């Protein structure tokens, strides 16, 4: 968290000119790709720790952990996006996200390779994700934004974490 705060400071310095329209995103890496989630949805960042497996669920739902007394499910984003698997190392990071509507919020952890930055994005600079057709699913992607020549995909947290309900219906 300390790291996060530091990042925030430097970023505010860089992007202070257009703070009105700015939205802050936490960016993280999955392989060579960079993703961002709305920073207000991020509850905390933890290191990976072994989970308790849940039987008979999709493989990207890794299991549940004890987060200060609540049972929190952990999703592997690499597997969720069908990327190649990576070994979990002590550097592997779990981003704990909040989702849900006014009547019910839930928290959920997603496994990512590493957390990179806190970026301030001007709302007007967000481009909608191009349609890849059936080849690539862009259902979780809210938009694209380029930061220092890097492309960051902004994820829709609610859609990302709601998916399992769809799975449930299928069951």
């Amino acid at each position, binding site marked *: 968290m300390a790291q996060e705060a530091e990042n925030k400071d430097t970023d505010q310095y860089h992007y202070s000119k257009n703070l009105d329209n700015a939205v802050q995103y936490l960016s993280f890496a999955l392989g060579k790709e960079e993703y961002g989630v709305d920073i207000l949805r991020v509850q905390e960042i933890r290191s990976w720790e*072994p989970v308790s497996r849940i039987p008979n669920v999709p493989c990207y739902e890794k299991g*549940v952990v*004890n987060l200060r007394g609540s*049972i929190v499910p952990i999703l592997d984003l690499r597997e969720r996006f069908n990327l190649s698997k990576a070994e979990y190392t002590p550097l592997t990071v779990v981003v704990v996200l909040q989702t849900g509507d006014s009547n019910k919020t839930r928290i959920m952890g997603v496994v990512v390779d590493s957390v990179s930055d806190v970026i301030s994005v001007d709302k007007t600079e967000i481009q909608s994700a191009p349609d890849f057709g059936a080849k690539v699913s862009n259902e979780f992607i809210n938009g694209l934004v380029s930061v220092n020549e890097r492309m960051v995909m902004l994820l829709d947290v609610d859609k990302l974490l709601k998916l399992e*309900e769809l799975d449930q219906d299928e069951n």
Partner: protein
Amino acid sequence: MSIDMSQFHQVFFEECFEGLEAMESGLLTLDMGDIDSEIINTIFRGAHSIKGGSGTFGFTVVAEYTHIMETLLDEMRDGRRKVTQPAVDVLLGSVDCLREMLTAIQNEQDVNNASVAKHKKALEVVLNGGSMTEESAPIPVGQELAKESVAVNIVPDIAEEESVELEEQGWKIAFCPYLDLLKTGNDPVRLFRELNELGELTTIANIQDIPGFYELDPEECNISWDLKVVGDISGDEIKEIFNWVEGDCEMEIEPLAKTKIVKSAPAVQESHPEPAVTISNNPVPKPVEVKSKPVQEAKKPEVQDNDNEAAKTTAKASSIRVDTDKIDTLINMVGEVVITQSMLGLVGENFSMDKVGQLKRGLAQLERHTRDLQQSVMNIRMLPISFVFSRFPRLVHDISSKLDKKIVLKLVGENTEVDKAVVELINDPLVHLIRNSLDHGIEMPADRVAAGKPETGTIELKAYHRGGHIVIEIIDDGRGLNKDKLLAKAIEKGLIEENNLLTEKQIFELIFMPGFSTAEQLTDISGRGVGMDVVRRNIQSLGGNIEIISELGKGTTIAIHLPLTLAILDGQSVAVGDETYIVPLVSIIESINITERMLNKVAGKGETFRLRNEYLPVIRMREIFNVHSGNPTKSKEGVLVVVEGQGELCCLLVDELLGQQQVVIKSLEANYRRVEGVSGATILGDGSVALILDVPGLVRFSTR
């Protein structure tokens, strides 16, 4: 007013509802012939404190209403008035009406004026003449609906009209502009015109502040107004009008004569269905066949009502009353823990090996205190089951008179304590089961006499503890379940094969099958639209089970077993691969060490185990949960845990038994979702999460 009264509202409402309950049970126990003045006193006290409280909090509708009740009760208390059944019935109706009013106020809804006015009339009629007791149609016992109809009969139109008059509503506005209002370009007249568009406007101008003619400055506004707008207007609409002058005046907007918070409500709201009135006007005993239909019709809206209430009540924050004793124990316990902790701290400060004994003793003490502490904390959540039971005398009273049956309800073990969550959730299933017994269990008085039984039927509601469980039994001495009829019905419905041999228990279980309960007469139980399958599902979701013992012609006993608490469970942890699962101890019958040879293959796939001449299906936990870790046992050194789920025995094959412990149940659904075969999760001593097995679910899952 400087004190915010609303902070006391919750307490006030709770007290009121308690008072109402006391009044209700008092009224029900009033014996016509022999009046116990103590009971009347209790009822009177209840009414009195509600009156006082509601007066304090400005709920004048309630206060006025209770005042009439009180007058009536007072006369009864002094012996100036005889206690008659009709009067008691009217009072019971008033209790209902009060409860309705209070619920409405509590939920910040409009009070149903029409119904209040009707009840009021009924009360006044009793108060003023009591002539109705003899002459007018005898009032069916305990039906509030009946009272309404009586009220309507006697004062047919006035009640309606009055209720309309009562519904005067609107706003009182004290508008006192600053001197320079006019300079800002605002014109009060324009404001008043707008108000007049909203509703009927009365203005009173206060001109006493106007200076003498020579001092008068035409640009200054020296008049203040008292305005009254009548109509169905929201506060926001009024505020909108005064939006422009907000900074330029002092003003106070308040609902018209606070007593009439009441806004126009449709004359009859959900609560008082028409069909019921027709029955109650017709109290002459008729054959059941004819009556049964309207009775059911009448019930349906009532059910809706209940559901609505339930929905409302779950939304509000709940509180709990705790015995001071319990809190004292708790404080004692915490003291002990603190002492032990400081003792351990001392030992740890200058620790040397010779203090090991002391350390061990300290730790043992700490363990004991922690366990005690846990127990007393859990105890706080425990409520006597009478919280649920106390509603039933009224239910039985009402329904039995509706059905023209004579039924006595006996309550046993009302002080048995059970977790608050269980208390809240068990109510609906119990209501359903009791209605069943009333409706279908107990026969008509004539039939009972013919069968050589006492004319008055008995329903016994009994609660007691047994081995970490609470058992609730509903025992009636009615006609019992007819096995042959049940069987025939099940075969007709295609639920079982014709030549199936079923044990008695299995036959009775049939009535829990979905689709079975919606059949006719015998199984169309109480017509609530919820079948016995729902009752069973509700009880199972509480971690309990339900069983039926019945003898034709003698009666039926329905026993519900429930865990005492929903928060903690005694569990057996088992290892499957390198994963740990918790099996609820209550569902375990026994555990057996087995070898491969002891299992028999069935059709090459399924496996059975022979336990004392009974072949039980085996569920391999490894397979059903897809566990690949650990060394796969070919059931060479496995352990069979024989469990019972939904009355069926079955065996779970696990790798190892780990140990028994109390586990705190955590919801998996809070952040995740329901998982097949798993009822929840818990956190083990090492901080990791273990899943709690849902045995009945597992059995269902495996047979799929």
